[in-house]
């Protein structure tokens, strides 16, 4: 199916694979309990016992990073899942039916697009309590516009093609035509877009958690580990570097996969 000759794709899959494995196997491979506070081991430099050092409460950074991977990745995946499903649904209806429905949905998208995403999310978060589920839903429901527009334009061009006419002539219902014939043929760019969106989602979640509005301690997230980094940068560089590196690598990994997939699909 997917030919593995693409070096970028391979690298990306390797990186994300590692992080995902870490996230799934967290309880097994984590050397310490991420919430375990230790008064004697505050702000220790990376050592054999604590390969990535400890934070100002003596918690092992590595363990917190591994569990943090769980949180960051799942939030991103679910958020993008929500936004893609919403986007595909709204975009398909807009593209297929056209007319008033199309205008309405597209104006809705325009309105959402007017707000700088992050501030929109901040505003919503201000009114709701910051919980894991809320974060996923908020990120998801404020970023559907990209995939909606993509699938709408794909469907606009596909629906005039002869095979759609043939399906109509056979008596297929609109629902059947859209779900079995239009969406499968239009889905490739949406997939690529979704991969890139996961990268963005990780960044957004990290940002929100860093500001204290996302995942709440003691649940670790790469973003909220960074909360301490502001005050401890001079004495404990490891609290800043490692979470930052993780975020960077993960987003890079997803981008590599996205670019690799784009190349793959272009060649088809």
């Amino acid at each position: 199916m997917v030919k593995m000759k693409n070096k970028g794709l391979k690298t990306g899959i390797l990186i994300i694979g590692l992080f995902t494995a870490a996230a799934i196997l967290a309880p097994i491979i984590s050397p310490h309990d991420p919430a375990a506070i230790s008064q004697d081991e505050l702000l220790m430099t990376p050592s054999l016992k604590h390969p990535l050092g400890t934070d100002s409460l003596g918690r092992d950074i590595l363990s917190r990073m591994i569990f943090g991977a769980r949180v960051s990745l799942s939030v991103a995946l679910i958020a993008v899942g929500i936004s893609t499903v919403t986007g595909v649904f709204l975009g398909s209806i807009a593209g297929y039916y056209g007319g008033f429905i199309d205008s309405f949905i597209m104006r809705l998208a325009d309105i959402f697009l007017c707000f700088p995403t992050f501030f929109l999310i901040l505003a919503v978060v201000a009114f709701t309590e910051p919980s894991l589920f809320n974060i996923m839903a908020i990120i998801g429901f404020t970023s559907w516009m990209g995939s909606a527009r993509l699938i709408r334009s794909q469907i606009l061009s596909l629906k005039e093609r002869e095979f759609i006419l043939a399906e109509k002539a056979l008596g297929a219902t609109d629902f059947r035509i859209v779900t079995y014939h239009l969406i499968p043929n239009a889905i490739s760019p949406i997939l690529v877009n979704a991969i890139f969106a996961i990268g963005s989602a990780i960044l957004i979640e990290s940002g929100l958690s860093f500001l204290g509005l996302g995942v709440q301690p003691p649940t670790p997230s790469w973003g909220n580990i960074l909360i301490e980094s502001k005050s401890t940068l001079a004495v404990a560089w490891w609290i800043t570097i490692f979470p930052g590196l993780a975020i960077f690598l993960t987003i890079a990994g997803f981008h590599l996969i996205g670019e690799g997939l784009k190349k793959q699909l272009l060649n088809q």
Partner: protein
Amino acid sequence: MKNLLEVKNLSKIYKGNSFFGNAKDVKALNDINFTLKPYEILSVIGESGCGKSTLAKLLIKLITPSSGQVIYDTRIIEKLTKDVQIIFQNPYQSLSPRMRIRDLMAEPLFIHHIAKKNSKDINNRLEELLKMVGMEKDALERFPHQFSGGQRQRICIARALACEPKLLILDEPISSLDLTIQVKMLDLFLELKKKLGLTYIFISHNLAVVKKIADSILILKEGELVENNRTSEIFVSPKHPYTKKLIEAAK
């Protein structure tokens, strides 16, 4: 024998777009009248833009007429019926690219509730249909792009036959195929007609083909029906000057 199809005063006008000032209406078809007896082949001939595709779409109810009626088997049909199926011109575009042949062919059976998903009889029926059009059953697991134009057209025919239609509308079904393949397809059409008791409306611009297979012919020019007669009459004593021009050009 009573008529299988009666078309009365059929017209289709596409409204001009007055918002942009270009308010001309396009008369795609104007007052078309003809009848079709069962088991016959009626051919519709004309140049590009004469309205033959519009006629096909009207007959299969993909679009609604501006005026006039299509009476099928003494009933006025309002919407799509499985008794009338259509084969389109371009075999490279008429099959959904991401579906297997099996799913494409089974679709009409589901749509018209002839069979339920995953029932065992479907397989037999699909193999039977493929055999009828001269294809092997291993085609079922493949995708459209793995077949040639002629083969794809055969798949389209098998699909159209799935619901046991009585009338097949063939909109230039062989025009985009090589001449050598066209001959084979024509033989297939005639064989199927005999075996399954079908009636055809065969749209074409190839007079040689039409002369060979049609019982009667409609000549369309810019939306108007200029001549309507039995095949032999049309070729032996064409009446309208346009018909004569067509025959001259084909010689």
